[in-house]
């Protein structure tokens, strides 16, 4: 029995380690000079650690990662706060009030959750071009805020149904209005769910590539994900630069995951994952 458990441990850990080899490779490529990794990062007779690749992509002349980072934050933070606030209002409306067509409207929103990004992008592109919002951060924030709504509404609606009505009713008897109840009682009680959803939405927006690719065209507006392919190099693939940029790009979502991974996984399992 002891030996059996040992074997299972060995197999399980071997698989987990094998799974991370590609990430280890990228990390190794990011901290070593190009000549050392172009023939294989696993050759370690010569092993020079350098931060030059990071510096090169951070201060790249046309598409610096430093600016891309700033842009990604400018996009991702409002694109997390706005839809969560708007969706919380709507989800509460669905849970605590009844009105004509409520269930049909809710079902429509649920179905929208699986909509491909390609289905909305052309009209949004045409609309934003006309309104002067194309190639602006605001234009992308608005689209992300709207596109994230369906799954956040679903998630929060499911959560709100688990909240005890009695507390709200007691507050209503004390003369609190619907909005006071929502802001002073419902939102504070929902903090764990709100954190879960923020973590997922932030990472989703940070990781998005397609919307940014279409809506942001000037290099000074580029977000992180858009910047990586630009650093590819003209005549040969700059694995060293691409690796450093990749590590930088994933550092943010990984940090969020590491710090809040209970909330993150609760979000993934709690409803459905965003895709």
């Amino acid at each position, binding site marked *: 029995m002891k030996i059996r458990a040992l074997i299972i*441990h060995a197999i*399980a*850990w071997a*698989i*987990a380690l094998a799974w*991370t080899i*590609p*990430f280890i*490779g*990228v990390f190794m*490529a990011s901290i070593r000079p190009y000549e050392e*990794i*172009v023939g*294989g990062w696993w050759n370690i007779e010569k092993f020079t650690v350098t931060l030059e690749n990071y510096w090169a992509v951070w201060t790249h002349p046309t598409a610096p990662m430093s600016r891309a980072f700033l842009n990604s934050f400018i996009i991702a933070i409002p694109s997390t706060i706005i839809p969560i606030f708007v969706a919380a*209002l*709507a989800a509460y409306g*669905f849970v605590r*009030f009844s*009105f004509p067509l409520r269930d049909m409207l809710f079902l429509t929103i*649920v*179905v929208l959750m*699986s*909509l*491909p*990004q*390609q*289905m*909305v*992008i*052309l*009209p*949004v592109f045409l609309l934003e071009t006309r309104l002067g919002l194309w190639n602006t951060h605001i234009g992308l924030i*608005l689209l992300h*805020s709207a*596109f994230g*709504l*369906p799954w956040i509404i679903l998630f929060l609606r499911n959560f709100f149904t688990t909240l005890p009505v009695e507390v709200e009713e007691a507050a209503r008897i004390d003369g609190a209005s*619907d*909005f006071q109840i*929502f802001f002073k009682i419902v939102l504070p009680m929902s903090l764990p769910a709100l954190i879960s959803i923020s973590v997922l939405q932030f990472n989703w927006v940070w*990781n998005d*590539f*397609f919307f940014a*690719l*279409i809506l942001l065209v000037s290099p000074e507006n580029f977000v992180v*994900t858009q910047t990586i*392919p630009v650093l590819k190099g003209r005549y040969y*693939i700059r*694995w060293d630069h*691409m690796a450093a940029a990749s590590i930088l*790009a*994933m550092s943010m*979502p990984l940090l969020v*995951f590491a710090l809040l991974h209970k909330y993150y*996984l609760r979000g*993934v*399992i709690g409803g*459905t*994952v965003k*895709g």
Partner: protein
Amino acid sequence: MRKTPFLFLLPALILLILFVIGPTLFTLYMSFIDWTGKAKGFVGLKNYIEIFSRKSIINLEKPPLSPPPRGALIHNALWILIHVPLSTVLGLVLAVLLRNVKGGTIAKSMIFIGMVAPMVVGGIILRFIYDEHAGIVNAILRTVGLGWMARTWTAYPDTALFSLILGSVWIWTGFCMVVYSAGLETIPDELIEAAKVDGATSLQIFRHIIVPLLKPATIVVVTMSVLWVLKVFDIVYVTTLGGPGGASTVLAFEMYMDAFFRIPANYGTAAAIASLLTLITLGFAVYVIRLMVR
């Protein structure tokens, strides 16, 4: 009738109508319009006929088992047929394997990293591991004596698509594993202990207790995997740009090409491809939702 519920819903409805519902309906409308350069009027099903007669969308002239390019629609189907069973089974096996392992949470997090990182980074990594000289895949092949196979796997039409599919299994399996792990937690230990006392082998327990009780998790895993695979875009864009010669293209990428890459842009056919993709995706989603509601 009180106005409050509408005030709660109003902001969401405005955003959804302006940026999701309105655009969706408008894309559907555009798919019936001749729109190359500028809108030229209603043409019925012409855009749909055009995309279905394109070899880049569906290539029926090739015999059934010949290598890509077979057209984006068939590539998407291959993606589902290969990716979904693989990642589902792998996710289940990993979840069961890591269930009672010391440090299992950390091991699971390591496998889950692919889901946390941007898909673009996933794509870059795939391109990197498949590279002829810098890639670990070829180093492993050389070590086990298969050096003659070594090549940049994403650069050849017969291997590009399958390399990407396997790579995307690597990225996505963490999700399947996490859902199955959550499902496993709902199975009481006593049940498994009781079966052991009755003399059941591990394999029997797995087949007759764990797998049936995980059916709800399997529904979630398969559904989300199909939806995810249908929408794949980022890794195709970053690794192969749909190439070589359209050998790894998918519907989402063809839509992008028609609308934003090819000159002149053809919004009509791009909208038709988007509508086709949406029809498949929503059709599948509605089918599953109805199954679950029942």
